[in-house]
């Protein structure tokens, strides 16, 4: 599957395409399939996202998981500062990333 990701223009935060909007949480991401380029162009032109691009992902335990570690680190935050990730209290998140 293909996820569409980018950064919020104002805050720089990593965001994921939910089918109708952008979310901070990869759990909300949907498969953009072959529409990824089209959506990316439209959303960037409207400045709802900055630098969007598609990433390859798989479904694992019902949740989308990017194939490349770089995108998994982007999705949650630095592995060396669990306190600054989106899931500071979840002891399993590191296993999901690495």
């Amino acid at each position, binding site marked *: 599957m293909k996820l569409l990701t980018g950064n919020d223009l104002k805050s*720089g935060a990593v965001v994921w395409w939910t089918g109708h909007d952008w979310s901070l949480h990869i759990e909300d991401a949907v498969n953009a399939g072959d529409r990824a380029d089209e959506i990316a162009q439209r959303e960037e032109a409207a400045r709802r996202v900055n630098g969007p691009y598609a990433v390859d992902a798989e479904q694992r335990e019902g949740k989308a998981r990017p194939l490349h*570690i770089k995108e998994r680190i982007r999705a949650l935050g*630095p592995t060396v500062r669990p306190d600054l990730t989106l899931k500071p209290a979840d002891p399993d998140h590191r296993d999901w990333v690495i």
Partner: protein
Amino acid sequence: MYQYDSYDQAMVDTRVEEFRDQTRRRLEGKLTEAQFTPMRLKNGLYLQLHAYMLRVAVPYGTLNSRQMHALADIADKYDRGYGHFTTRQNIQYNWIKLEEAPDLLADLAKVEMHAIQTSGNCIRNISSDHFAGAAADELVDPRPYAELLRQWSSFHPEFNALPRKFKIAVIASDTDRAAMRLHDIGIQIVKNDAGELGTAFYVGGGMGRTPMIAPCIRDFVPLDQLVSYSEACLRVYNRYGRRDNKYKARIKILVHELGAEEYTRQVEEEFAHLLDQGIEPPIAELERIRTCFADPAFGDGARSVDRSDPDFALWVDRNTVRHKHDAYVSAVISLKPVGGIPGDASAAQMHLMAELAKEYSFDELRVMHTQNIVLPHVKIADLHALWTRLDADGLGAPNLDTIEDIIACPGLDYCSLANARSIPVAQKISERFAANGKTEALGELKLKISGCINACGHHHAGHIGILGVDRKGIENYQLLLGGSEAEDCSLGKITGPGFSEDGIVDAVETAADVYLRERAKGERFLDTYRRIGIEPFKEALYG
């Protein structure tokens, strides 16, 4: 240290307003990201892995306590309570919002700081010896020359769209603590036979994917021609540096392809022409800047410490460096606690370092390219009081220049260019050696880790270097041996196939053990490596 006059302040304030205007036009959609990117980069603002990252310039690594307090306040107000000191003596913040960046810059400008030209294809912040003005072995304080060049290079109209970034370092002693020959231009202040001060120019060094050691292209440029000669070096580069391939666009490639002799000939020709153009500031300007760097009022005092506390004695032995005044030392505050993130400091730690600088170091601090902080002028008599307060707040790690004093780039935890994480490797290595107790026996051993080929972690120049690569989506680490960024500059060699994250920690210990087994009396790791070569290490690693 340097103090802005109304002109300098006006320049920085103007850039804040210009950037505020550029940011507004970007947010309103009047600038595309492609147009805005070089503008924000030239003000140190990247779009990184998790957010915008802002790199703040610390010119030649020198700060006062007010500035360090301001950096701490910025970490709290605009970021997440910490900052990262970099291998070019700057500080960067990882979680900046574009819409707040202009206000942040305005806060910086209030303490005579900025983010001007900390990225982009222009002349970057000029680095220098972190012990400048304090070192026992320096000819003069190199910082006035760096400041002269800072002003010359700021908003230089001709060199605002160079083929690639351009880094300059200025030193003034034969011991090179600034990796001078691994810069686009390395400048050493020297004396000629007549006893006059001048500058030797080394051009075309660099790390990155094609590391090169800069050749000396002129051994003496008179001080009153420093700007003209720099301008000539840059003009030849701006006109003829390659623009067809980003990876061949640095000046090292130009110098290499032309040959140092031909490059030098072109520079000399341009220099002869520029001497008639009236672009050189008068020597009075250099003298004005020099007065800002006058020595503080050093006093007499004890020349030794009470060594009855072994922890304190160890810290003194490891983390203090001889000063030009006998009653003083330069004290290094390690930002490399065992298992910590190299170069990171919390806002609270920055505030503490600022307070200690005010109390014990004539209000001065330095950022080292090795990602530590220096209090340059500490009275030997004050060392115990200083250490006690550092140690209480986790800043007393006694590991300067040891295997635990690791340079590491932010790597894949923060950087969108990285292929592998650097920080976890640094953490595991420092934990390993703290636990096995070999740090002391290993002595001086400079270990440097980069998370990609761009080499921000200086892996080519480590006695032991580690380069993170991406092998089919898995992080993999290559080991290099024999690099040095000091006056005995050399580039490390790759030992062979790479290692996993845990494997590289074992490999470093294996290499360290070869040294411990093979060393002759008085040899550092690097000396032994140079004497016995890479084979015994390969044998132990792969044999």
